[in-house]
């Protein structure tokens, strides 16, 4: 339904990158979204249905199905995060080096798909923890090559829209998965094995769609003898590029001031007194807003500039912090507050997640696309992890509200710094005509 959605936009006079020339689409036309992007969106949608099915029933399975106490399960999160970061960098770089983003993405999706039937065999906490770690490894491996494929398939001036479509489809899968899982459990009481089996089938389908419908030829330009090989040193040398360095730095800086989701939902519950039984639905609210706003904000980023939208997303987050601080003051609790906060929170993701990749893609040469995107993503992910530890500590020492106030001040300062650091216009990839007009 997004395909024909570009009326009224003047056809730009730029020649898309050669990789955008997918059979059936004549180069230079902006009418249609690259089929590769739709195919990757479909793969992500299907895969997210599969993985969120498992995530949704896992607590129930552990406690009610296996009779285990899953407490302290999250303690390994730090280690997982570290491994995930390394894997992500490796996936991105190898995709560049071999010129085979699709193969790396396929490996990642395949690994995660393999984990679903393994869940049928794992009956102890350590075994299930190992399967989940493997699942995350697959996710880490595939993310950068997949984003590289999206950025290479879309015309530069269209990247915001391409990432918007992809993230919307991805989030749709995350919304469908839990519903499917609970429908199965309704039909078959205690049918956790059925949930895992269906999840495995869905995941296999995702891999198949990737294999069949995502073009797999070399994604980088053919290496000429004169060209520098895609070495590890060259990959880290990417940070020598001013624009990428600034983008990575800003993503890192802003990531350090981002309160993690779990805390946002806890703060929201404290501010509004939402009943416990609705608490589990809060992440769905954020996901729904993300789903609805990903495409419009991606398109806006193409028109207005990705950097502005990216910063705007952080202002939305700042506003959400402000509402949480004001709403928690005790007098006059507004019934609209949870909706407003979740909308802003989802809007924050919609304006930053795919948009950052669209922005970063413009600052990385094609042959280093995977590694470059992985670098930015990893910096951001590690910064957010550090932020969640820091926020937890601040909560401990000062209490939730002062901690949030400090986070808000830091976020405002970081956003201001990033507005000043603004990478050059070149990264916006806007067509010259659009920029002049």
């Amino acid at each position: 339904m997004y395909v024909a959605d570009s009326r009224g936009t003047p056809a730009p006079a730029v020649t898309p990158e050669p990789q955008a020339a997918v059979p059936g689409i004549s180069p230079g036309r902006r009418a249609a979204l690259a089929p590769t992007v739709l195919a990757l969106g479909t793969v992500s949608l299907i895969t997210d249905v599969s993985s969120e099915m498992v995530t949704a029933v896992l607590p129930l399975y552990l406690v009610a199905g296996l009779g285990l106490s899953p407490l302290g399960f999250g303690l390994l999160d730090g280690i997982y995060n570290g491994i995930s970061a390394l894997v992500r960098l490796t996936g991105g770089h190898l995709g560049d080096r071999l010129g085979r983003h699709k193969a790396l993405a396929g490996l990642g999706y395949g690994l995660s798909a393999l984990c679903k039937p393994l869940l049928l065999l794992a009956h102890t906490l350590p075994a299930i923890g190992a399967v989940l770690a493997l699942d995350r490894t697959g996710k880490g491996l595939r993310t950068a090559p997949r984003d590289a494929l999206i950025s290479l398939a879309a015309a530069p001036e269209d990247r915001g829209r391409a990432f918007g479509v992809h993230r919307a489809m991805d989030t749709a899968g995350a919304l469908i998965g839990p519903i499917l899982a609970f429908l199965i459990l309704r039909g078959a009481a205690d049918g956790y094995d059925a949930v895992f089996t269906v999840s495995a089938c869905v995941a296999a389908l995702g891999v198949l769609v990737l294999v069949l419908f995502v073009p797999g030829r070399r994604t980088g330009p053919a290496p000429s003898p004169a060209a520098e090989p895609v070495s590890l040193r060259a990959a880290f040398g990417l940070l020598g590029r001013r624009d990428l360095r600034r983008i990575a730095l800003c993503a890192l800086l802003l990531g350090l001031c981002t309160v993690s989701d779990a805390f946002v939902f806890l703060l929201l519950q404290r501010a509004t007194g939402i009943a416990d039984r609705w608490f589990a639905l809060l992440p769905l609210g954020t996901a729904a807003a993300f789903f609805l706003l990903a495409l419009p904000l991606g398109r806006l980023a193409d028109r207005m500039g990705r950097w502005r939208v990216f910063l705007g997303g952080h202002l939305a987050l700042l506003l959400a912090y402000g509402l949480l601080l004001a709403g928690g003051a005790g007098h006059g609790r507004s019934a609209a507050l949870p909706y407003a906060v979740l909308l802003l929170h989802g809007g924050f993701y919609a304006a930053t997640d795919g948009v950052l990749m669209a922005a970063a893609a413009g600052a990385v040469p094609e042959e280093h696309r995977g590694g470059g995107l992985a670098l930015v993503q990893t910096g951001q992910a590690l910064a957010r992890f550090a932020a969640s530890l820091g926020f937890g500590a601040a909560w401990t020492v000062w209490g939730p509200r002062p901690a949030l106030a400090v986070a808000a001040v830091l976020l405002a300062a970081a956003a201001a710094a990033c507005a000043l650091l603004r990478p050059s216009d070149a990264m916006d990839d806007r067509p010259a005509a659009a920029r002049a007009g």
Partner: protein
Amino acid sequence: MTLQRRILILVSAVLLLAAVGVLAVVRASSRADEKNRSQAGGPQITRGEVTLAPGGDGRRIVFRNMAWGPHRDELATVPADAPQGPRTASGVSCLRFHAAAGTGICLQAEKGGVQESYRAVVLDARLKEVSAHPLAGIPTRARVSPGGHLVAWTVFVGGDSYAGTNFSTRTSLLDLRTGRFDASLEDFAIRKDGKAYRNADVNFWGVTFAADERTFYATLATGGQTYLVRGDLGERTVTTLRENLECPSLSPDGTRLVFKKRVPGLSPDAPWRLYVLDLASMREMPLAEERSVDDQVVWRDDRTVVYSLPGDFGADLYALPADGSGAPAPLMASALAPAFLG
């Protein structure tokens, strides 16, 4: 490969995978139906009157019946001296249960809606609902104070879907005399090592009450360590007493706690052993159960504790001397969450 061919492959794969998925769901569904039919060799179960009233029906056990059949998951009763005999089922379904002095607490699943939800129901001596409270997660522990005035329960909360594997607990307390409801023990002031303590990662579970209807013991987890805490409902405080102690259960005479301890060097999938702690000397001693027990025990009397282990139909109950002597003895099969009344 031509587009036509790719689509052909996709369609065949979708059909094949759909068939596998449907088969799995159908199998699981018929297996679920099977659980509603009585198993040969299982205990004889009839529908009848179950009472929590002190004195009524003599010394007895009220528990969640796990045996397959139409009364699966219902509260049932057997005489304390014939635990393996015929069971009387009540028609009230509970996942977790405890009772004392004519008051019962039943954590049950609530059908309806796409996702299953849970509620805590306070029951009177005739198993009639006194009050109900929606739950934020999956039930795990429930307790009533010896005098029947205080009720506590713990649920697992799977925080948010982005974090995925991070679980926390929520422990609630209800005072039936005043109607005061504390949705989360985390609102109580914590004193740890003599100082006020605050941390966002604090979790409580496994409350057990003393006979004064005011003091309680529970597990506090923070910073990757578990602690035994003593709580005071009047002051709304909890104070840490000791490290590495989970799911305490206070003896009827109030002198000892039996708890599960994470013993170093054991396999991470079976990390717990039962221990007894003497509250006067603060000395602990292992009990004679060599398997890992993940349960909050109940006391049959001042000498014996009862706990569940995984069994063929969910869980079986075992009895064990509380002084480290003897050996575990099977008490009853296909049963969970017992309360000794009489």
